[in-house]
């Protein structure tokens, strides 16, 4: 009765136990599970993915820079996770809806975020950086794992509506320990909900290596709930794209939830407030630099003879443009007036809060009078 389980011996072996289409050297290999999903991906499409990843890395670097310069309170870098985020998010249809955690800069980029959307929340101007309806993405979620249940509920709604949509949720390796993530799998399986779970196993939850959460492949968790899963090389953008298409097709076909564990690596700190030198084993970052997802796709395009200087230049221009606009939007943001703290607590009038708002307005007005007097 007990499913076969493959323990992770070390990160090297860990990395070989994944579905993959591009080797770290950029060579295309066959994979019977994934190949069917990338038949239509030509060189132009690959270049598109490369552009996305490069632009994303630039956005991420700009976020870090803005934080260092005191323009943002915090930033959660996704450097190293570009293939996972771009690969999976580019496989989505516009009508799908995403429930992310806080590190999914690449996902909101792929969903059409405008420059200010990246920074509005981290700067402390708003609770949500973007308009959920505009991007088809729920607000970034900070409570670990909470969003996975939202995705499942949304997917239950899709099913009730008889719609051809999928809900997708992103979360980290650490999140898999939370009750909510496990309950999400229970509900998703029970209701056969069209939801895709994307676990970005970036090997760390702040200072804790993934082994604190699980000494077994996270992808092995889902089948116990009745959810098919796939463990994919998260630094192989093509494999991530294919895996996501597999999962989406499964969900869209009415077969219920699917689970993807993308094995990747956070190359930067947890957030700009973190100091990974306190916990990262020596050499680990260096080893992962060798597996850089952007370099891998570049090598592959080189091998195909499909990487052009022109495309690189265009990409660079685009990256610079986005970064520039992002910075300009950030610096130009105007903080809402004091009484805005009372806005939108409720959708309908609340007498208690109205009284407090009036009292506070009167209090503030007192200062103006003082100044005037």
């Amino acid at each position, binding site marked *: 009765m007990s499913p076969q389980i493959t323990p992770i011996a070390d990160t090297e072996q860990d990395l070989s136990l994944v579905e993959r289409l591009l080797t770290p050297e950029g060579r295309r290999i066959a994979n019977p599970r994934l190949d069917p999903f990338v038949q239509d991906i030509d060189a132009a499409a690959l270049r598109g993915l490369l552009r996305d990843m490069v632009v994303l890395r630039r956005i991420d670097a700009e976020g870090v820079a803005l934080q260092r310069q005191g323009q943002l309170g915090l930033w959660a870098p996704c450097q190293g996770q570009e293939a996972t985020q771009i690969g999976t998010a580019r496989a989505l249809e516009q009508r799908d809806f995403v429930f992310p955690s806080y590190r999914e800069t690449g996902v909101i980029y792929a969903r059409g975020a405008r420059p200010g959307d990246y920074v509005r929340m981290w700067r402390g101007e708003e*609770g949500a950086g973007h308009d959920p309806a505009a991007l088809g993405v729920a607000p970034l979620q900070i409570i670990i794992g*909470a969003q996975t249940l939202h995705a499942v*509920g949304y997917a239950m*709604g899709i099913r009730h509506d008889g719609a051809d949509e999928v809900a997708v949720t992103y979360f980290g390796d650490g999140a898999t320990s939370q009750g909510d993530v496990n*309950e999400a799998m229970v*509900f998703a399986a029970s209701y056969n909900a069209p939801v895709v779970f994307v676990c970005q196993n970036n090997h760390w939850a702040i200072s804790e290596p993934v082994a604190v959460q699980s000494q077994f492949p996270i992808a092995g968790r889902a089948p116990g709930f009745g959810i098919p899963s796939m463990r994919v090389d998260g630094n192989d953008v093509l494999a991530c794209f294919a895996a996501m298409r597999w999962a989406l097709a499964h969900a869209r076909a009415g077969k219920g939830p699917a689970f993807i564990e993308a094995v990747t690596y956070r190359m930067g700190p947890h957030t700009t407030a973190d100091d990974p030198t306190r916990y990262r084993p020596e050499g680990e970052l260096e080893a992962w630099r060798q597996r850089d997802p952007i370099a891998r796709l570049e090598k592959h395009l080189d091998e195909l003879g499909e990487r052009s200087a022109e495309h690189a230049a265009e990409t660079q221009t685009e990256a610079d443009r986005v970064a520039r606009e992002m910075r300009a939007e950030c610096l130009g943001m105007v903080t809402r007036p004091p009484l805005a703290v009372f806005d939108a607590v409720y959708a309908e009038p*609340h*007498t208690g809060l109205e009284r407090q708002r009036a009292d506070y307005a009167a209090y503030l007005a007192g200062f103006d009078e003082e100044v005037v007097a």
Partner: protein
Amino acid sequence: MTELTLGKALGAGLRRAMRDDDRVVLLGEDIGRLGGVFRITDGLLDEFGPTRVIDTPLAESGIVGTAVGLAFRGYRPVVEIQFDGFVYPAFDQIVAQVAKLHYRTQGRVRMPITIRIPWAGGIGAAEHHSESPEAYFVHTAGLRVVAVSNPADAYRALRQAIASDDPVVFFEPKRLYHHKGEVDLDAPLADALPMGLAQVVRPGTDATVISYGAMISTALQAADAAADEGVSLEVIDLRSLSPVDYDTVAASVRRTGRVVVAHEASREAGVAAEVIASITEQCFEYLEAAPLRVTGHDIPYPPAKLEKHHLPDLDRILDAVDRVLDRRNLTGAEA
């Protein structure tokens, strides 16, 4: 007018809300085939089917969390928590998500979720089946909190809660599920008193007794008993605990100058503390005596055989009334 128990009135309210709006869906443990352990949802599965009356896995965080997702999708979920003491596993989803998503998104995402909680004690139940957790939710900005005390109110307020674009934690006094009252099933919601209003359920002149939920019956009995001794008590049913209708409350207090606030929940930082602090702020110079609290003790809910020594009853309310009417004993507690 139809005579219904409070439980049946709630069921009728749910049925009506579901007929009126097909985005209303129910989620909870055992609410389908069984009709809920209190039979509040009895018959709804048959009428609306399993996609609108959803028996959920046994996980309260999952129930509320998926309700959030349904709300994102435009549904109006009504969640049943099986008993008051089982709401805590959902606390994070309620406090950090349900209560905050509207604010987080500045109104772009609405959370018209109703969380129904069979509530409070006095029914001889096992541990965790008699809790009064309302203060936790009153203290949580972004939620509305309602507590009903009779069938007519139950029918009206439940429909209002479901129709509200804000999340509502809706407390149903288990002890009164079988109490009967007249309900006008056809009264248009538009004509009803707003959900946030308190009600003077018995006018009086000597002192104001403020309460809610099942304790309203006790307060009314106390008022009867006091009347026999020539004391006229005004009884106010708060009905809405967030917001509290301080206009109604303060108007009464300014007339009587004497206040007792009663509830089953424990005392420290409870709803009575809130009401008294606000009354004192708003009506200080009208107060003839210190407002007093009659509450459960600051103890975990005791075993059933001892619950009568925890729950405020007629005598404890009357004792407090005596004290607010007699300045001599006011600060006896300070000794």
